[in-house]
């Protein structure tokens, strides 16, 4: 069903979007989502700000520590970004210029990590290169250490964000008019000078935009830094977490949160400026005309080697995880020494047992149930709040143009900061498991709104007018026209919310009750405990989470309308 084809050729501004809404009904529609944002975001944010202004926050010691942490955060983010660029640029060139077998599969593979929960990525690297990992077991090098190093953090960041470079720079590259390069060649420029004087300047906006975006993600990264680096590599995010849970100092945590927020807002502004510039193309061409096959022998070898490198880099951690979850690699219970190798399902079985003295008070598999329940609640809540907001945003007036950046603000805020805000504002309710879906909804809502909004805006206004002239009341129009047409977008938005809730780590770690752990929280606890069995259970849990997430991603890709859910 191609809804787009129903669009009239004589489109005017008023032709699309919901039936012209009066100001009172707009305010009515905004009531629920806006109250939610105030209660769940702006009030907690104000508590953080107030705490920062407290005399306890701005001490010399705090400021010194904060600047040290800020400096390190910048340092690791810069290193990560540069290394991401090193892998991402040739990869972008590969995807934009070469045609090879399995290309779309490889592209999907490089995009996969970006959508996976951080704990899954961390667990994957641990399963491959950690002290109990596959590589370490089969190639025992005495001096080899990966987990707990800056290298691990940076490699995981590269793994995560290379897809951004491939996407932004690759798209710009493939829509570049190849005749410009041909013209430069015919004017006597050699390939390197073409690259330097023609290709690179044309790509600069896309390059800068992707650079800022990668930097932003590296800057705010939490799960990877905590799980692969450990607390000695304290970035702003990790330090906030430590100052909330491990070495409580809430004024300091608040101060760090504000610094973090200011930085992310600045980067976001920078990004949107570059991003708008990168969309201006002089003469966009279809990507097809730029593609070619390898010609010379040397080119063939270089391209094949790079494809191999890229494939291994992305496939190894992701496949190490499920393999390790079925691979016994420790002594039997109660026995010392005598490490036994082999296939086992024990790690999965163990998840169903409530052992005394374990890190949980319940069988660990309950975490899966908790996660699914929280995810379900998040889906319901974010759709309930997302629909009215998306409905008015699809036909924006000045009210919506003012509100829009505000409801996107949680997107730029760090998850750990959201968790801190919840603790400061609703500490008394921390015993209630209801707080978690609220925090997850806050993270998911911008995505849900950005998925629904273009779909709602794409419904021709005349369909609603036709229904209305046939006797359908506004409610019946909504029920019979909007809702059925939006089914796909609703499914996509709901799955987005579901996936985000499943993988959410930072905020959940701060506010989840010990007896109601989610899957990511359970994985973190397993990883922080000694013993092969705990480790194996972390692998099993992470594998379950990976499968759930991949299934959701496949569903989104199937149902989503092209262009929706992008920022």
């Amino acid at each position, binding site marked *: 069903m191609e809804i787009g084809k129903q669009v009239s050729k004589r489109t005017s501004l008023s032709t699309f979007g919901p039936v*012209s809404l009066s100001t009172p009904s707009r305010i009515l529609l905004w009531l629920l989502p806006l109250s939610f944002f105030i209660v769940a975001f702006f009030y907690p944010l104000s508590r953080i700000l107030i705490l920062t202004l407290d005399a306890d926050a701005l001490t010399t010691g705090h400021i010194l520590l904060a600047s040290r942490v800020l400096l390190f955060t910048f340092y690791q983010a810069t290193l990560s970004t540069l290394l991401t660029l090193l892998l991402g640029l040739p990869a972008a060139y590969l995807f934009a210029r070469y045609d090879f077998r399995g290309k779309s599969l490889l592209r999907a593979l490089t995009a996969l990590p970006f959508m996976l929960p951080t704990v899954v990525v961390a667990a994957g690297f641990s399963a491959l290169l950690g002290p109990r990992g596959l590589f370490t077991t089969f190639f025992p090098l005495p001096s080899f250490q990966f987990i707990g190093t800056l290298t691990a953090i940076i490699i995981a960041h590269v793994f995560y964000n290379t897809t951004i470079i491939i996407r932004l720079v690759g798209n710009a590259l493939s829509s570049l008019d190849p005749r410009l390069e041909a013209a430069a060649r015919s004017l006597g420029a050699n390939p390197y000078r073409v690259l330097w004087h023609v290709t690179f300047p044309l790509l600069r906006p896309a390059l800068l935009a992707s650079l800022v975006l990668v930097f932003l993600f590296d800057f705010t990264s939490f799960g990877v830094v905590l799980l692969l680096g450990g607390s000695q590599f304290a970035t702003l995010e990790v330090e906030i977490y430590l100052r909330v849970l491990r070495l409580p100092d809430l004024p300091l945590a608040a101060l760090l949160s504000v610094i973090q927020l200011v930085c992310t807002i600045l980067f976001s502004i920078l990004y949107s400026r570059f991003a708008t510039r990168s969309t201006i193309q002089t003469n966009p061409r279809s990507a097809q005309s730029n593609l070619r096959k390898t010609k010379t022998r040397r080119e063939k070898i270089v391209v094949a080697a790079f494809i191999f490198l890229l494939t291994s880099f992305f496939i190894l951690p992701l496949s190490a995880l499920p393999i390790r979850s079925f691979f016994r690699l420790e002594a039997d219970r109660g026995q010392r020494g005598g490490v036994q190798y082999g296939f086992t399902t024990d790690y999965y079985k163990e998840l169903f047992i409530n052992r005394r003295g374990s890190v949980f008070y319940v069988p660990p598999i309950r975490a899966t149930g908790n996660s699914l329940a929280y995810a379900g609640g998040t889906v319901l809540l974010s759709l309930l709040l997302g629909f009215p907001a998306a409905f008015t945003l699809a036909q924006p007036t000045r009210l919506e143009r003012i509100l829009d950046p505000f409801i996107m603000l949680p997107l730029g805020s760090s998850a750990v900061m959201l968790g801190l805000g919840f603790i400061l504002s609703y500490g008394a309710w921390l015993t209630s498991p209801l707080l978690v879906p609220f925090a997850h909804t806050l993270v998911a809502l911008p995505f849900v709104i950005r998925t629904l909004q273009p779909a709602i805006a794409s419904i021709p206004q005349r369909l609603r007018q*036709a229904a209305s002239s*046939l006797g*359908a009341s506004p409610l019946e129009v909504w029920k019979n026209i909007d809702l059925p*047409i939006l089914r796909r977008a609703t499914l996509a938005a709901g799955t987005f919310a579901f996936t985000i809730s499943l993988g959410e780590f930072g905020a959940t770690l701060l506010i989840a009750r010990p007896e109601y752990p989610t899957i990511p929280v359970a994985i973190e606890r397993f990883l922080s405990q000694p013993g092969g069995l705990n480790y194996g259970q972390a692998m099993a849990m992470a594998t379950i989470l990976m499968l759930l997430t991949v299934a959701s991603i496949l569903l989104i890709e199937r149902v989503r309308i092209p262009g929706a859910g992008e920022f």
Partner: protein
Amino acid sequence: MLEVHHVYKSYEGKPLLQDISFKVEKGETVCLLGASGSGKSTLLRIIAGLEDADSGSVSFDGHDLTATPAHLRDFGLVFQDYALFPHLSVSENVAFGLKMRRLPQNEISERVAHSLEIVNLRGFERRQVTDLSGGEQQRIALARALATRPRLLMFDEPLGALDRTLREDLLNQLRSILHRTNIPAIYVTHDQEEAFAVADRILILHGGKIVRDGAPAEVWANAESAFVARFLGLGNVFKGEVRGKQDGERWKVDSRFGMFIVPCAHSHTEGDPVQLLVRPNVVDEGSNIIQGIVTDVIFQQDRFKVSLDNGLYFYLSQAPKMGERIEVFVKVECLG
């Protein structure tokens, strides 16, 4: 009977409709004819209740509809781009209005079948609307509007997206359906041929006002203004100046094409500026003669369109030579 009283509407500060009043009698088809941007579609949406007028009112059979929302007005509406619901089948589309009225299922099926019968699309019930051709889609849209047996049918450029032959064919069907069902109708178009073919009465909209209101033949015979004459393409329109009375209701009028004797019921005084219309069909004899050098001759089936160096054009039965100086007898009309 539909009555529109003194409707005003402005858009972003600019007046779009100014004091529009007219009636549509029972069984009558009224055509709103105007260039794009003349406000005719807005007027239609105001009548349908999809938009509010700044002032003025719409009433039907004496009942004021200002407070009645669109879905309770019982006016059928057919759009240029059909606006068929893409997620519903043909029969579900046609049944939509009936379901909204909560009619019993057997009556719905009966009426759907009947409506599809009227537009000659029986057997299309289970088809997807997205699989149909443009002409078929438009007939389904018409069937959908007819099924509810509305008090008034409204058409917003219904044939605008179709090609010429299909348009003529559908226009004939539409006229006979309107005639048979006796439903009063308002038909909005910018195409004068379409308007003249379908309408019992034509309203020409210009600058937010109704500049001409009459039966097609009447409007054709008496344009009454230079704008209408130009808009309908009635012939050569140019300025003149009254030089005095000839006799009775005939006036002497000077222009850059010569002095003419023009019949006109209005009273003029010497020096009055007037607009003149010279239709391209020449007459056998008379007092008004126009001369010129032939610059272009186009063959048009049963006649030749001849353009002269002074910018005027005429239809002649025989082709003159290029560059030849010719003289023709013409009828000159006064447009006031």
